[in-house]
């Protein structure tokens, strides 16, 4: 068992990552000066891999994702430090013109709000065709045909008719399909999906999730799947990154995270899952809300950012910030007292 694991890890280390983010720091201006909302975030994504980025709402997931393509509103947002190496080049240092060639082409994004993410005054066909016009240089007619093909791919019924419709004529799930079609036009090597199902009806959620996975298999894109719900990625992601208050607090493979969470916050997230997924086999299906809320980034507790909610808090936690401690390239935890890996995860 250990041997196999070693081998896999060896392989991972050999692969050149598709995206490598290092020391990313992002601040937002406020009346009382800049507030850091993403603090020293670093991770990697290998080609074709699905990585889950998890954390409660407000933990900095969207800002992290948007920063990768310099899409945060600026002002008030500023990327104050960090690198984001994609296919050998730093996206954050790249001139705008080159970055634009990557956006929507090599790296695409799907957003949380399908209701507002499409232009209300443009037919959805035109909005998809726009991507082909831009990145492929298609003629108007070609772009229309290609857009129609994409609509068929994402399984929109009556695509010829739907092409000419406006977003307001469509349901949320349908619009998210349009967003997915738009994102996949140019066969991106990386797809960033920022809570693509959060705003949808529960019944539609799994449909959209399945579609993304199906599309990924067809297009072979790597996916950064952002969610506040660990359950969403339990079945799909290979690795998981857990964020809290603008920092990465734990990383690991899905198995490691679900079977032996090391950070009390990850553990709390797991406890709050309605169905404990893989943990169900331990015979415990309790539902526990995490008490308290994500701290305001302008007013973080001293020491560990989780210290005001952590059940295991000790004195040292309240004045010394724990460092991100890497066990190996894919496993790390930011805690003075990581939960012992061989216990059942509830210290």
């Amino acid at each position: 068992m250990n041997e196999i694991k070693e081998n896999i890890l060896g392989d991972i280390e050999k692969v050149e990552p598709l995206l490598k983010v290092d020391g990313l720091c992002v601040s937002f201006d406020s009346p009382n000066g800049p507030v850091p909302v993403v603090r020293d975030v670093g991770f990697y994504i290998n080609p074709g891999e699905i990585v889950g980025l998890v954390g409660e709402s407000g933990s900095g997931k969207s800002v992290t994702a948007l920063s990768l393509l310099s899409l945060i509103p600026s002002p008030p947002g500023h990327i104050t430090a960090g690198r984001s190496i994609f296919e050998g080049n730093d996206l954050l240092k790249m001139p705008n013109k080159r970055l634009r060639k990557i956006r929507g082409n090599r790296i695409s994004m799907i957003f949380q709000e399908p209701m507002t993410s499409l232009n209300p005054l443009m037919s959805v066909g035109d909005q998809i065709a726009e991507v082909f016009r831009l990145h492929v240089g298609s003629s108007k007619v070609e772009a229309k045909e290609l857009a129609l093909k994409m609509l068929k791919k994402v399984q929109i019924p009556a695509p010829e008719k739907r092409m000419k419709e406006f977003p307001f004529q469509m349901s949320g799930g349908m619009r998210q399909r349009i967003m997915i079609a738009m994102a996949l036009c140019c066969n991106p090597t990386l797809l960033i999906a920022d809570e693509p199902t959060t705003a949808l009806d529960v019944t539609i959620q799994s449909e959209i999730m399945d579609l993304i996975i199906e599309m990924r298999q067809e297009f072979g894109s790597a996916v950064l799947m952002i969610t506040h719900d660990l359950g969403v990625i339990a079945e799909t992601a290979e690795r998981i990154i857990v964020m809290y208050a603008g920092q990465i607090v734990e990383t690991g493979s899905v198995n490691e995270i679900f079977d032996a969470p090391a950070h009390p916050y990850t553990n709390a997230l797991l406890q709050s899952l309605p169905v404990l997924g893989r943990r169900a086999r331990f015979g415990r299906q309790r539902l526990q809300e995490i008490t308290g809320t994500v701290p305001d980034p302008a007013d973080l507790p001293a020491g560990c950012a989780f210290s005001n909610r952590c059940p295991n808090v000790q004195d040292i936690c309240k004045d010394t910030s724990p460092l991100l401690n890497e066990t190996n390239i894919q496993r790390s935890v930011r805690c003075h007292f990581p939960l012992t890996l061989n216990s059942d995860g509830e210290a």
Partner: protein
Amino acid sequence: MHRFILKRLLQFIPTVIGVTLIIFLLLNLVPGNAALSSAGRLELDPEVVAQLRKDFELDKPVIVRYVNYLGRLAQGDMGKSMLRRYDVSEVVFGRLGATLKLACAALAIALIVGIPIGFISALKQGTWLDIGLAVVSVAGVSIPQFWLGILLMYVFSYMFNILPTSGYGGGAFSNLILPALTLGVGYAALLARITRAAVIEVLAADYVRTARAKGLSALAINLRHVMRNSFVLILTTSALLFGSLMGQTVVVERVFSWPGVGSLLVESIFQRDIPVAQGCLLLIIMVFLIVNLVVDILYRVINPRIDFK
């Protein structure tokens, strides 16, 4: 769509009747009118005065007069001037051309100057340019029109003597410039503020972020995604503006002796020539209502989100 237009047209009728009622009461409940005061001055025979009273129905209760007025109005008869006995509708409609010309010229200035300034301010939000334009706009909005009119007149007609002081000049373009500027500046400034707010709102929209994530250039985003969406917002507000623009023509026409409905209105009110004043007011308000109707329909044409039910 057709049903919507029909419905709006049907709503138009009670609105117009309401307007006539308000105008009628306003002008007829205020004491004094031309027919009797001129009679008093000229010390006319009681017989003649009685005839005047009869001609203008001054011997009847207000409500009867209103109903009769409405009946005549339905046939296109706005009555006769109390002073000169001319046909009101003929004269008032004859003046409409000059007023519309002035209002449209002012609106054109407002659109051509105000919208680009608003766009630039929004795109350069928070810079010195934006702040500078804001100061200019606030000044533009708050300048009283009669003062601006006289200032322009002083500079361009008196100091440099390049433009006529006042009057219609038989419809010459040079006569239009100063009054149109006077009327247009305030609206340009107002429109700049409205445009700026609309564009800033649109720029923060999620679909603009989507457009950026697609890899579009700033120019393409502004042209294809920002402009049209902000025009929907701008259009509704500028339609409301046109109403007050029509009202303001009264002041500007007076300053520049512009022979429009507005100056006729002021004259007729001073002279208590009630049928003429009624005709002028009704016409100005009708133009406002019709513009609103057209904008309402236009708004639905460019904005597919609204149901036509």
